[in-house]
């Protein structure tokens, strides 16, 4: 997906020039319950990023990305998500960037596995002005575990281009990781790590990879709401250097439930 990392599309010089930063999130294994719709707005602003137009791709510097994510719970083991990516930037106005769809399945909690396990697959289109690779596909395993106040999630994602300059590069490795700690029932803090190591069959040198670290806080103010705020720094030359992100989510239960359901 453009999903869990800003790194899903490539900024790498060795690859086609593209932009990410539409959805910056490490996924947990928990699904949206059936007959529930989760509406999330991902707001990401690149404070310090790429300043040049490369291969017709707009610079990321001072881009504001607003992504609407709609996730519908299907069963207690499946959900499907849909993304609308937009970008706002001086001189370019507000632009539609693309759409993705993301089915996901998860191991039911009733199986009693010691860790949460889920797998999502995401396929979608983005305009060439924002990514030369217009069609991409991602497979994202999700493993997470809560232990007391600590939370750990790992997303070792694999992604590839279906249409675009990188179509022959095969699968790329774009892992994401989160370590969180509950300070109180309502306030958690942690670190999120996003990376794109590039094609598995030709991993580029470190400075051409994308490596980014976010300091984040999650506010658990209500079972119906979610709020994640973070500041991220890029650690390599090929990564946007400073990004501010915010995820605001609201869950809507549209099912007709009675006390006996």
């Amino acid at each position, binding site marked *: 997906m453009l999903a869990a990392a800003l790194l899903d599309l490539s900024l790498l010089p060795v690859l086609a020039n593209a932009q990410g930063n539409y959805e910056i999130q490490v996924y947990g294994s928990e699904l949206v319950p059936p007959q529930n719709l989760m509406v999330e707005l991902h707001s990401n602003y690149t404070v310090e990023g790429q300043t040049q137009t490369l291969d017709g791709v707009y610079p990321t510097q001072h881009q504001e990305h607003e992504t609407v994510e709609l996730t519908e719970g299907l069963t207690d083991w499946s959900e499907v998500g849909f993304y609308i990516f937009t970008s706002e930037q001086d001189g370019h106005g507000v632009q539609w960037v693309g759409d993705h769809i993301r089915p996901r399945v998860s191991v039911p*909690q*009733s199986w009693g596995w010691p860790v949460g396990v889920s797998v999502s697959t995401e396929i979608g289109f983005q305009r060439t002005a924002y990514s030369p690779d217009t069609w991409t596909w991602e497979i994202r395993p999700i493993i997470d575990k809560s*232990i007391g*106040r600590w939370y750990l999630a790992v997303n070792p994602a694999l992604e590839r281009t279906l249409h675009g300059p990188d179509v022959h590069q095969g699968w790329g490795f774009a892992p994401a990781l989160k370590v969180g700690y509950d300070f109180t029932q309502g306030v958690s803090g942690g670190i999120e790590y996003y990376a794109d190591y590039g094609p598995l069959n030709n991993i580029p040198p470190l400075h051409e990879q994308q490596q980014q670290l976010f300091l984040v806080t999650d506010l*658990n103010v209500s079972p119906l709401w979610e709020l994640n705020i973070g500041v991220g720094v890029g650690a390599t030359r090929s990564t946007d250097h400073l990004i501010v992100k915010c995820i605001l989510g609201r869950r809507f239960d549209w099912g007709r439930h*009675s006390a*006996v*359901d």
Partner: protein
Amino acid sequence: MISRRDFLERSALIALAGRFPSGAQAEVTPDYTLEIADTTLELSPRHRLRTTVYNGAAPGPVLRFREGRAVTIEVTNRTERAEIVHWHGLFLPTDVDGAMEEGTPMIPPRGTARLTFTPRPAGFRWYHTHTSAMQDLTRAQYGGQHGFLLIEPSADPGRYDREFFLALHDWSGYLAANEDGAMNPSYAVSTINGKVLGAGEPLRVKPSERVLLHVLNSSPTEVHWVALAGHALQVIALDGNAVPTPQTVPMLRLAPGERVCARVQMNNPGVWILGEVRKHVHAAGMGIVVEYAGASGTPRWQQPSKLLWSYEPFAEQHPASEPPPEATPIPLLIESRFRGHGSMEAWLINGKSYPDTSVTPLESGRRYRLQFINRSTDDHPLHLHRHSFEVRTVGAAIGSPFAPETALRGLKKDVVLVDARTQTEVEFVADNPGATLMHCHQQNHMDLGFMLLLRYA
């Protein structure tokens, strides 16, 4: 690392060495024997699990005692863990009540104990393990150590042609996040008398019979609602104590540890289902077939649309007797303590967790009013050992002053469900000296501090 409760269990075990010297009671021939041992239960052809039970089955055998007549029970522990049997609802001395916190000795691994006591009061009671489970959702009440106990009175509580004992239980627990952000046990399988709906023998009845159901909720943590499709249920006793005002109701609600005795007039021949009213628990297996003689076909279920239950209608409706004497209030503020989204919550009574909880010692013969002020977001089935209490107010707003003129009368119980963010008050007479445990009957709550030891002065 061991919990404080585990530590106490081990301490009680050490104390046991001097309490049950080998052969000290060997001359007494036991009236009953209970064997605690691991076994494989078949809840259905698709659900088998390894657990600990009494006498090879869950629920264990129905024990029938005569009120006031001494009984001796030999309990053999075939497991590698110390065990203890609590005789729930009986007015017993502390050394046999079955709570190590009160001083009852643990039965050591591979050990045997002979317990002699005089059972009272009459009514539907039960017995179960009183050990801790902590994070292990297969041990203690998460397992199969529960059984029925009927203390027969000099006269039957009501006429009936046939009686059935039914235990509601949940199995294969796992921790899942609940809406308040902490972990809570959920269950993959739910049963009546250890069988998933359709897997066990039906309850066989005849037209026009009057059937008496003794229903027990032995679930480690879950409240259950049950109904018998096509029939109404006349509740005649709660927690084994006859209610002042029997009521005919469409369904029963039982919190963990609660019992309901209900008569059913079998006047609707067919094949029916007695089962959990909530769909997901029903689907998890909590049901049993009720089959009239000569009837056949697919068992029928009629899905209720609401959950209906209240304690109030069973109390005296027009109290004519003298009101009970003034009771000394004991405020008990119930709160939880967040320990992380990956943990179950800890529990506090007046700001402290067991074993640091305490209140002023009781004076023998005095009447007390326990004020359960539940500020948490969970409902709690609160149980008082070795005594029964009279329910006076239920589900009141927190801070409501006690109004004796409108308080409930005559409803005697030993477990009361206190709804989240409400206040419930019960009164009891301190007439059974000795350490007396009060606790939430949810296994995970009592394991994590929700206990209070009342002491006599």
